[in-house]
């Protein structure tokens, strides 16, 4: 779009990268080609493990420890990076090629102020002195619409919000006015409402300075907003590449089509007996964290019936996960009670009996930390069987195999493995199997798909849907991803700062008239239309309530 001058900036040909594991070298990038003109944005998409990030870093002539660039050529503005000396590459990095990492919180040095970290490359590369760098930082902070641009740079990384930190990092990448910026999933860790602001910032900055960029993500809707052309990767190989618009309307390869189709999943309609006693009833729940005085939950009320999926949505910090902690009994509410089939549950999980514990199961966001890395799969799933149901020996074995079949994993192959030998999606399936093993009637799913790729996430949603039909389960689905909500929920509860702002059947909540906050959330979900972001930003500005305010708190 903005590439008026078609000057070639980066040319990658036949790039091969190898990684070292299990005592041998494996190919992780197998001969990828692409080129980038000045001012052009290339979107790299694919599942995790497709080699996106590895290729992104390789564009700087760098390979992570344990990896090596094995073949091909990377030509940046005439300089061959595969054969360049460390000194030559060091002169480029930071100054002419910059990198924006996924987790800004982990990438900033917590011991230095933002503005000093901004100034470091400028001074290092001899582009300017401290005063000039400070002045430039303030100008850039203003340009990316950070609140208080003159003073915010003097804060430490933990003193600003996640969205602001990600924007500060974008500003930092621009410090030396590089020709190329590599964005590695810069918005994946952010809420939708924050994401749209960061995306708008990046887009406008890149346009303004005519910077070329490589934008790495697994979110198609995001890449549709950002990129001039898109390259789809799978298992280290290029699947296809074309202009954004033609890629979106007319993908050629089956794999790309399957990526595009992910968002079409809709759950099977359930028959919910509205007259029955609610399975779970949350009554006037208010909660604070011990040692603080701020209410994280304020008078929350809703009901969940058998066969029903209730989705709780809201930004991080809205109290969604706290609600899960109250229901499971990990956090005692200061007011209100939880009823299970009409009976009041003890507020502390330690006072609940096995039957009550067994009936409410939980599936966590990070399957990695939710299962013990030192236990075999058969022990992880087998424990609830022997613990709650007293199964041993042959009976337990049979049940284990049944459960593995239910989660569509081969029992012979996986039962004796350790979690480290499974993929992320498989680990999440194991967590589902562990929850199912207890024969629960109610499962809390806390952001179960947000750490997964879209294809894998869809598989998990389908699985949960099928299990619901088979076992009449009720789900409480905690998520910030509205696409997931519209796929799986029957009822939606929208939360903001600990309060329920709106609740009701999905169709009612997601259709006009909207509650103000629900509308903000809904309108912030990226759509596959490449003009979507420009349109939304324009609409918001026209309305005069710039979305940029919400992250300022």
């Amino acid at each position, binding site marked *: 779009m903005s590439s008026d001058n078609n000057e070639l900036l980066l040319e990658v040909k036949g790039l091969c990268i190898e990684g070292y594991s*299990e*005592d041998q070298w494996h190919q992780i990038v197998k001969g990828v080609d692409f080129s980038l003109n000045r001012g052009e944005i290339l979107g790299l998409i694919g599942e995790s493990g497709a080699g996106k990030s590895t290729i992104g870093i390789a564009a700087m002539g760098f390979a992570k420890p344990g990896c090596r660039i094995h073949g091909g050529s990377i030509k940046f503005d005439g300089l061959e990076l595969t054969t360049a000396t460390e000194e030559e590459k060091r002169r480029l990095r930071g100054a002419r090629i910059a990198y924006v990492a996924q987790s800004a919180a982990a990438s900033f040095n917590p011991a230095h102020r933002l503005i000093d970290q901004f100034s470091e490359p400028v001074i290092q590369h001899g582009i300017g002195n401290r005063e000039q760098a400070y002045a430039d930082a303030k100008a850039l902070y203003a340009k990316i619409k950070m609140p208080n641009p003159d003073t915010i740079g003097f804060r430490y990384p933990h003193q600003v919000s996640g969205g602001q930190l990600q924007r500060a990092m974008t500003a930092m990448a621009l410090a030396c006015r590089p020709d190329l910026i590599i964005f590695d999933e810069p918005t994946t860790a952010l809420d939708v409402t924050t994401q749209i602001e960061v995306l708008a910032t990046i887009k406008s900055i890149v346009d303004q300075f005519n910077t070329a960029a490589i934008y790495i993500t697994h979110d198609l809707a995001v890449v549709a907003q950002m990129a001039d052309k898109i390259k789809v990767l799978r298992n280290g190989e290029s699947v296809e590449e074309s202009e954004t618009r033609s890629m979106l309307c007319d993908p050629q390869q089956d794999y790309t089509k399957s990526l595009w189709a992910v968002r079409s999943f809709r759950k099977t309609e359930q028959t919910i007996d509205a007259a029955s006693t609610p399975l779970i009833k949350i009554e006037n729940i208010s909660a604070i964290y011990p040692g603080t005085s701020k209410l994280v939950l304020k008078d929350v009320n809703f009901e969940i019936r058998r066969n029903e999926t209730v989705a709780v949505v809201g930004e991080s910090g809205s109290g969604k996960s706290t609600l899960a902690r109250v229901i*499971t*009994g*990990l956090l005692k509410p200061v007011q209100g009670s939880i009823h299970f089939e009409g009976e009041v549950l003890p507020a502390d*999980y330690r006072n*609940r009996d*096995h039957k009550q*514990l067994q009936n409410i199961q*939980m599936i*966590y966001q*990070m399957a990695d*930390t*939710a*299962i*013990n*890395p*030192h*236990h075999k799969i*058969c022990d992880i799933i087998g*424990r*609830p069987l022997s*613990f*709650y149901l007293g199964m041993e020996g042959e009976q337990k*074995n049979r049940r284990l195999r049944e459960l593995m079949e239910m989660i569509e994993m081969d029992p*012979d*192959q996986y*039962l*004796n*493995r350790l979690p*480290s*030998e499974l993929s992320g999606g498989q680990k999440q399936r194991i967590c589902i199997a*562990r929850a199912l093993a*207890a024969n629960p009637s109610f499962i809390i799913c806390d952001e179960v798909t947000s750490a997964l790729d879209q294809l894998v996430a869809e598989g998990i949603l389908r699985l949960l849907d099928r299990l619901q039909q088979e076992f009449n389960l009720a789900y409480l689905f905690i998520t910030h991803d509205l696409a997931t909500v519209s796929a799986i929920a029957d009822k939606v509860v929208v939360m903001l700062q600990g309060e329920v702002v709106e609740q009701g059947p999905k169709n009612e909540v997601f259709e006009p008239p909207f509650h103000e906050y629900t509308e903000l959330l809904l309108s912030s979900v990226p759509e596959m239309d490449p003009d979507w972001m420009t349109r939304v930003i324009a609409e918001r500005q026209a309305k005069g309530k710039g979305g940029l305010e919400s992250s300022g708190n």
Partner: protein
Amino acid sequence: MNQSNSTSNDSSMLKPTKTRMQRFFSELLKAPFSAKLGMLVIVVYVIAAVFAPIIAPYGESEIVGKKYMLANDSFILGTDNLGRDTFTRIIYGARNTVGIALITTIYAFLLGGLTGIIAAVIGGWTDQLLSRTVDILMAIPALIFAMLLLSIFGTSVPSLILIIGLLDATRVFRLCRAVSLNVVVMDFVEAAKLRGEKIGWITIREILPCISAPLAAEFGIRFCFVFLTISALSFLGLGIQPPTADWGSMVRDTADLISFEDYTPLVPAAAIAILTLGVNFVVDWFLHKTSGLKDEF
């Protein structure tokens, strides 16, 4: 359970899973020279300790020659102040010093390790009570405290083990509590709590496997400290009592000879130094390995 199909059924597309034993041996072969040397030293000491009566030419406290004989054909390291064979005493010393140090270290780990994890899991008052008790014990210099307690309770081998074990357990407690705190916040511990698991199960089945690597490394270092403490106490006359052979007291018995340019006191001292070095070489390598694998959990 179906142990038999753990390796056989893996199809070719999956990475080959080595058994733990295979992995252990392949790591062992790749160990650096210093670690291999350390392992060799430990093996030699273990053999000496286990087969002491077979290897040693004379009885442990048998007087077989004149006092202070120099090395000759029948006494390869000479004799000590009572005319006992130094070489025999060194061999038996391995058994006594190393054996007692090992028992003491295991005891310190059982005591300090379990209380450390429990303090981390339960938290609150239990944690405060245990941690402050440990702080008080650690506030007194260990060797002086050990000497004090040993002079109160007498210098028998059981009291030696119990007292040094207790003092070293405080250090193990600190380490265990610290590493467990990192594991306790994991979701799988929360899941176990919500399942209704008892504290014992959480301690032993959920947390212990996750912290075993740093604990194993600490075990090596702690063993050296215990072993040096025992030798030091023996040298001061409060440790292992004669006529039992022990390297610390052997150094003391022959210490005067150093002024006559006799190397005899250096032999048990060298036995102490070499084992300490050997264990540390192995521990260093082990620590290096485990720190590289930290991202596993």
